[in-house]
């Protein structure tokens, strides 16, 4: 029995497919593994945003506009609390500027509960629910763990909902880039000739246009009266407009070098059809590299969406994305008085870093036969 175990492990290694080998190598990359866990958590939270967000992100609580974050309190002079409690707000007015502001006051305690009923929402867009991970027993009581914006909407809920857009806009963009890139790059590399020359020149022209002005022009060209969904796809198409050129170049290069590989010639001599050579022999041998490259391209997409939306040229309110949330921080005054409005920057930084680490790990693991 004890003799059998190492043998089995060895057999597993010998019969391991490309993806298993890549996964085994990837697992050794610590930062990448942690980052992967973080990203999975982010996507999970975004998928069930309604459940994790304490409130409806569009719910306006005018009486609590620009309220600062409430800390979660586990332990205070009244003892240990689990679930934790939050303190209520006291409205005050600045004696000099006469501006109204809120202060967290320990006199007012609200007990929190897990899995409470609150604002209704839809799971996957059609399952009705009103259960929230955490909330006050009375949904009318204030619960603003990351503060509120100018209209009194809960920042935490808005950041969670914003992730739905910001985390996927890049994915869709990258996916479109991948399809376009493999198609055009493949045609370019496999057939060669004038088709290749035409596609290569097109790529060069596209890549020589400065990105930001191009995006600005393209998004300005999007009609104003689009629905939120149309706008979303409009932006992804704009983002992948440049992205595919890089993919196409890589794919073309791989096709050209693979064409001269012995195992491709071997496939031809045993009568393998052209189409099968491409999808069975060529694409699998570079797809892992491509995925690694695209993982590294994702953060750029996410940042681009943010930048466009921040400038008011990408997604526009009432659509919630991390970019549109930052829209409100464009004036210095807002930052000085309500610094918590900058909080959406945190998930952006974490996501971008995590994607970079995962991309690094994938790139190192992409070719298990090297």
């Amino acid at each position, binding site marked *: 029995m004890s003799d059998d175990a190492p043998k089995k492990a060895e057999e597993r290694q010998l*019969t391991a497919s490309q993806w298993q*080998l890549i996964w085994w190598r990837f697992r050794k990359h610590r930062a990448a593994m942690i980052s992967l866990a973080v990203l999975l958590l982010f996507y999970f939270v975004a998928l069930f945003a309604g459940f994790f967000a304490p409130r409806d992100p569009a719910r306006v609580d005018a009486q609590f506009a620009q309220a600062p974050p409430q800390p979660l309190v586990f332990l205070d002079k009244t003892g240990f609390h689990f679930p934790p409690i939050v303190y209520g707000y006291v409205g005050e007015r600045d004696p000099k500027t006469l501006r109204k502001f809120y202060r967290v006051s320990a006199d007012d305690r609200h007990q929190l509960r897990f899995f409470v009923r609150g604002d209704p929402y839809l799971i996957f867009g059609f399952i009705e629910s009103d259960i929230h991970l955490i909330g006050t027993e009375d949904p009318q009581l204030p619960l603003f763990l990351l503060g509120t914006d100018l209209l009194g909407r809960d920042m935490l809920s808005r950041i969670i909902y914003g992730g739905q857009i910001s985390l996927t806009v890049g994915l869709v963009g990258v996916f479109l880039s991948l399809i376009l890139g493999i198609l055009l790059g493949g045609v370019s590399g496999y057939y060669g000739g004038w088709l290749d020359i035409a596609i290569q020149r097109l790529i060069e022209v596209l890549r020589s246009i400065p990105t930001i002005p191009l995006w600005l022009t393209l998004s300005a060209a999007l009609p104003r009266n689009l629905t939120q969904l149309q706008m979303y796809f409009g932006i992804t198409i704009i983002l992948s407009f440049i992205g595919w050129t890089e993919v196409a170049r890589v794919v073309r290069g791989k096709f050209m070098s693979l064409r001269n590989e012995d195992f491709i010639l071997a*496939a*031809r001599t*045993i*009568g393998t059809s052209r189409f099968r050579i491409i999808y069975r022999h060529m694409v699998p041998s570079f797809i892992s590299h491509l995925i690694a490259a695209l993982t590294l391209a994702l953060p750029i997409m996410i940042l681009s969406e943010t930048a466009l939306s921040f400038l008011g040229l990408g997604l526009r309110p009432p659509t919630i994305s991390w970019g549109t949330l930052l829209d409100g921080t464009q004036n210095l005054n807002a930052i000085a008085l309500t610094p918590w409005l900058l909080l959406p920057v945190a998930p952006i930084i974490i996501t971008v870093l995590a994607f970079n680490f995962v991309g690094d790990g994938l790139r190192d693991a992409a070719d298990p036969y090297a």
Partner: protein
Amino acid sequence: MTMPEQKPLLEIKNLKMHFPIKRGVMGRTVGHIKAVDDVSLTIHQGEVLGLVGESGCGKSTVSRCIVRAYKPTAGKILLYDDAGGAVDLARIPEPDMLPYRRDIQMIFQDPFSSLNPRMTLRQIIGEPMRNYQICRGKALEERVAYLLESVGLRSEHMSRYPHAFSGGQRQRIGIARALALNPRLIICDEPVSALDVSVQAQILNLLRDLQAEFRYSYLFIAHDLSVVDYICERVAVMYVGKIVETADTATLFKDPQHPYTAALRSAIPQLNPRLRQLPVPLEGDVADPANTPAGCVFHPRCRFAEDRCRHEAPAMTATSPRHHARCHFAGELNLSGLSEPAATA
């Protein structure tokens, strides 16, 4: 060893493969690399023909023209069927090649790059049979198992990937794949030169046993004359895109008629420390196939070169019915001194 009546299997006639040299943005052709320049060869059924030469002589290009990795510039590649009918592989369009591909299979030099690392042995060896819809499912599995066993591998390793095997074992996998379609001609492109010495002998023995059992025809390409001597019945020697000599193996080694063959022969170090010679049979470098010398391509390195060799390209001359050499002085030169051991300083 050779049978008197041999039916031709593959006949190469005046094959030329010139690769254009392109320069500039517009890809203007500024010259040609004459990788294969007027090669004629016949491989008979059940014969093992060696094709030897140094790197860059065009021997691999010949093999790649036969499997139509390249479309030849000129010439004919006639594949004969059993009834004596022939088809010219050099001219038929690519899609029509399919039925003839199964007759000609190839074994590659590099056992690492010639197997797709992302496929299991079952998939690699099964693919040719799948392509021609010979068998599927259980029958395919059984046939793969049979092929693995016949090249000396264990059939239970079918689910493994190539990375699980050593160089010699991978070469066996490549051989099994080549045998899968029961080809009539197997092109062995330097099948042992990338292998370790202790493994080379295994593969050479395997190739010989398979040939003896199934009467395959081999075109055996090599740079190593001792390997060719071991496995081939007849040998063709190539130099800068041209065949310079063809003969039965024993004759070629005993009585070479082209000075290049003689030089190649004596350049092989003998495996005997008491016969130290370290001869330098040839000075200089192999001619550039993009810029070949006038007259005989070998004349700048030939110690017998005369004025005629510098101007007039020699034709293939028969010195006996089965022995041909591309030299103006074929049959006249005394080349034996070159291949005999001489004492060293």
